[in-house]
């Protein structure tokens, strides 16, 4: 299982829980075995990540249906505000390097998955589009949104202290 780590990493970031991630990965492995016939050459990692993502959404539908509901565009800002912490809360947290990771973990699901696939798996827009079953344009806009949410995150501001120079 050469792409087990990639699958586990994605599951871990999607579920944000060690044990849930393991459940999802195991389910995905069973599915992979079943659908091994649909695997095309040279895209094994993206193929397996697609399966992991499907396994996650099925799992999520069973265990955390509320999280999928945030998928629609109108809920995005609300979700971002809900999940983001207040500055004082952030200040209470250790101001160590885990801060950015926490900010990523608190991104709404649709942005988190695109960001993780891009920044951690280092997949191309096209591959991400295929895995997440969305157009490339949507990948780009979600990625941009994910990054701006990270920059706006109170967690980060308390740490980085500086504003991005380019914004007018």
């Amino acid at each position, binding site marked *: *299982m050469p792409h*087990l*780590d990639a*699958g*586990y*990493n994605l599951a*871990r*970031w999607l579920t944000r829980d060690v044990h849930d*991630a*393991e459940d999802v*990965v*195991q389910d995905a*492995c*069973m599915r992979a*075995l079943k659908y091994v016939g649909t695997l095309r050459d040279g895209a094994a990692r993206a193929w397996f990540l697609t399966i992991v993502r499907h396994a996650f959404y099925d799992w999520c539908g069973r265990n955390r249906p509320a999280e999928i509901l945030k998928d629609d565009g109108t809920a995005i800002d609300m979700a971002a505000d809900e999940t983001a912490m207040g500055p004082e809360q952030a200040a209470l947290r250790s101001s160590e*390097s*885990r*801060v*950015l*990771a926490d900010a*990523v973990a608190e991104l709404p699901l649709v942005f988190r998955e695109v*960001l993780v696939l*891009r*920044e*951690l798996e280092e997949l*191309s*827009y096209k591959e991400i589009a295929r895995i997440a079953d969305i157009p490339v344009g949507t990948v*780009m806009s979600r*990625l*941009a949104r994910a*990054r701006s949410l*990270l*920059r706006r995150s109170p967690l980060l501001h308390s740490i980085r202290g500086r504003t*991005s*120079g*380019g*914004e*007018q």
Partner: protein
Amino acid sequence: MNCNEAGMLVAKYADGEVDSLQGRSIEQHLRGCAACAAKHQDLLALRAQIGAEVPYFTATPELRERVRALLANAQDTARARPRPKRDRWGWLTGGFVAGCAATLLAWGVGTTVIAWRANEDVAVEAVATHVRATLNNHLIQVASSDQHTVKPWLSARLDYSPPVQDLASEGFALTGGRLDMLNKQRVATLVYSRRLHTIDVFVRPESAPAPSTLRTVRGFNVVHATGSGMDWIAVSDVSADELTQFVQRLAQQTATP
């Protein structure tokens, strides 16, 4: 390129997703535009920070072991049970359906052709019988214009009782009856005369309902009709219209005194 156009490209550029042409124009723009260059730097910094601070989780050895066992187990059971069960059934179902379709098609075409041929044969045979009877002058075995004489005579010699009707009032006089072989089957033949013409009407139990058909074989008109549970095949040299009317009148058996 202005900053608007550069907006989306900056992210693409930072992600290494631009082609060489776009790359050149964005680089040119970034050199001249401090705001966009700052955006680009900011993006690169964020990417670098994510790369440095956001962990990539790897599967624990326990998970790895569990998955390995899971897969080995699944493969074993798959090997024990002939694996492509679903596929095999798929083929079987496909083959079965295709076979059924082919059989049905062949059967449909076959019966159509056979029915058509049989019709053809019956018409030809009916004309041949009519001609033979006329030439041999043995048109009539039971000579009577009385339907109550002809009917029992025929019934006694057949396993069915054909309806017999004298239509002398309408210009079709019953002159008698005889037995014939038609399509390897004994049939009752009713003989009518219309002025100087002779009309043979072959009556046999209805095999399949068929619409009235008119054919002409060697100059004779052959009209086929069904009614009263019988097949009626009339052969004569009278006009087609008259013959059709007559045979339909017989088949309907409207007035039986």
